[in-house]
């Protein structure tokens, strides 16, 4: 039999799956950019409200940047994403195709935010520009990108739905996790997490702090962030907390960017 021409390394000959392959390697993870605040601006909750909601939030983000806080903005989708998901589902398109369609609306929203922030250093980024983040941040810019992770056609199907499980909340968490940031910040139109949808149930009770495991165990019909993020949080190496703040309340975004525990915190 012909020989494999291998490069000797700790993994040569190994299958690259399963934890066993790396048992002999001393892995000491390095945080890439731990001081960056990864911030999501909600689609349905913020952008679909237009100027009334968006402008005051951006003012607080610009103020945070002026005070030296490094902010990366990731945009959500909202009602146009729901519309395309709905139409594509009727056509029985596979999840991976729907995930690819889902990239476009957060990208539009990111471009809108960039236009508004341009005079304060707003820069639009594609996922391929991610390595330019240090440049933008060192220049004092506010990078803006789509929250959608780039999985697209490679998004896996989930049981009982064709909606992709990794959407813009997952993109925020995964970006923060890659960068080595401790917390991901989600700007929405509610004071955080409730035991039911507060828009439909006025008696819903606010939950200021909870672990991902407890939240999953409660089995709530509605949660404020994508469920897949709750699955990932306990095994994250860096991003151990998700903070949800109400962008409609003046001062809450700036306070959260300065480290205050406003809203709700879901932790590992």
């Amino acid at each position, binding site marked *: 039999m012909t020989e494999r021409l291998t490069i000797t390394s700790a993994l040569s000959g190994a299958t690259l*799956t399963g934890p066993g392959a*790396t048992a002999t390697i001393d892995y000491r*993870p*390095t945080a890439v950019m731990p001081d960056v605040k990864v911030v999501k601006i909600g689609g349905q909750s913020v952008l679909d409200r237009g100027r009334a909601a968006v402008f005051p939030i951006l003012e607080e983000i610009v103020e945070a940047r002026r005070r030296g806080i490094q902010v990366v903005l990731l945009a959500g989708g909202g009602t146009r994403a729901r519309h395309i*998901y709905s139409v594509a589902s009727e056509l029985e398109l596979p999840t991976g195709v729907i995930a690819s369609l889902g990239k476009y609306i957060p990208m539009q929203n990111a471009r809108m935010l960039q236009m508004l922030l341009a005079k304060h250093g707003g820069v639009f980024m594609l996922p391929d520009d991610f390595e330019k983040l240090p440049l933008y941040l060192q220049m004092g810019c506010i990078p803006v990108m789509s929250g959608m992770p780039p999985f697209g056609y490679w998004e*896996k*199907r989930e049981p009982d739905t064709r909606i992709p499980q990794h*959407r813009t909340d997952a993109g925020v968490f995964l970006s923060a996790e890659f960068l080595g940031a401790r917390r991901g910040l989600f700007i929405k139109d509610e004071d955080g997490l409730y035991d039911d949808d507060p828009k439909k149930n006025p008696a819903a009770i606010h939950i200021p702090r909870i672990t991902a495991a407890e939240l999953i165990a409660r089995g709530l019909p509605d949660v404020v962030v994508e469920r897949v993020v709750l699955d990932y949080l306990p095994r994250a190496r860096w991003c151990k907390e998700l903070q949800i703040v109400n962008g409609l309340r003046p001062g809450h975004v700036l306070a959260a960017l300065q480290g205050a525990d406003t809203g709700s915190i879901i932790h590992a």
Partner: protein
Amino acid sequence: MSELVGGDGRIHIHSRLMRESLQDPRVLAQTDSQRDLRVFPDVTLISIGGQSIFDRGRAALVPLVDELIELKRDRALKLVIGVGGGTRVRHTVSIALDLGLPVGGIAQLVGAMEELNAILLNALLAPHGSIPMQREHFWDLPLYFDAGITPIAISVPPYHFWEPPPDAGPLPMHGSDFGLFQLAEVLGMKQVIYVKDEDGLYDKDPKHHRDARRFGAIALDELMPQLPADNILDAALYHAWVRARNLQRISIVNGLVPGQLTRAVRGEDVGTVITKRAA
């Protein structure tokens, strides 16, 4: 006609998902049905292993290329080829781990090593009609098939910096075998044939265990309870396939044995054949 709906401070477009939380399982279930649209149901995806084939160089590659050229004479066959990265990927990952790079950093790096093999293979196949396919250029496929051009894709999925935290250990969960599986699944292809250097899937690594037992034809739900931990394919592939709707057949054949690939492309049971539904 679509209509705009306001009244709660937000502007909505009317749709079934309007105003709804996409976290609510009841809402999510409304989007589902028993089938997924199959875009390319007559396409065979051939995966050529990095470590198992490319790293053996000329001796393994040239006979396999000859077999592909012969297959390509049948213009009715629609083929897409995917390639692995092999030992250079392992070297990349071992250096990256030593440097403490995060899992997303590792996922970002490995595709480049597969690109090299795609170019190598394309150099051999181009005179007979082939092209390295860019990431998401699936919608060019009818053009390629019509022209007798075989696209060559890299395998690793583009999760890049956003690779999710692994269940255990520091390695990305979404490897090359999974990436090609997902490509075939999302496009509703006929079958995937993984060309490796073993006669199929064994209950343990046959390179280290003389008593390893090979699986012949087996249904996926029969295989899952006895899925070998040391597996020739990524675990993520099997778990994704269980939940998938389209792909019905995966074969694992030995690329070092002339003719196995051809027979598998023709639909014969060669090596290990895993089917989504029991045959």
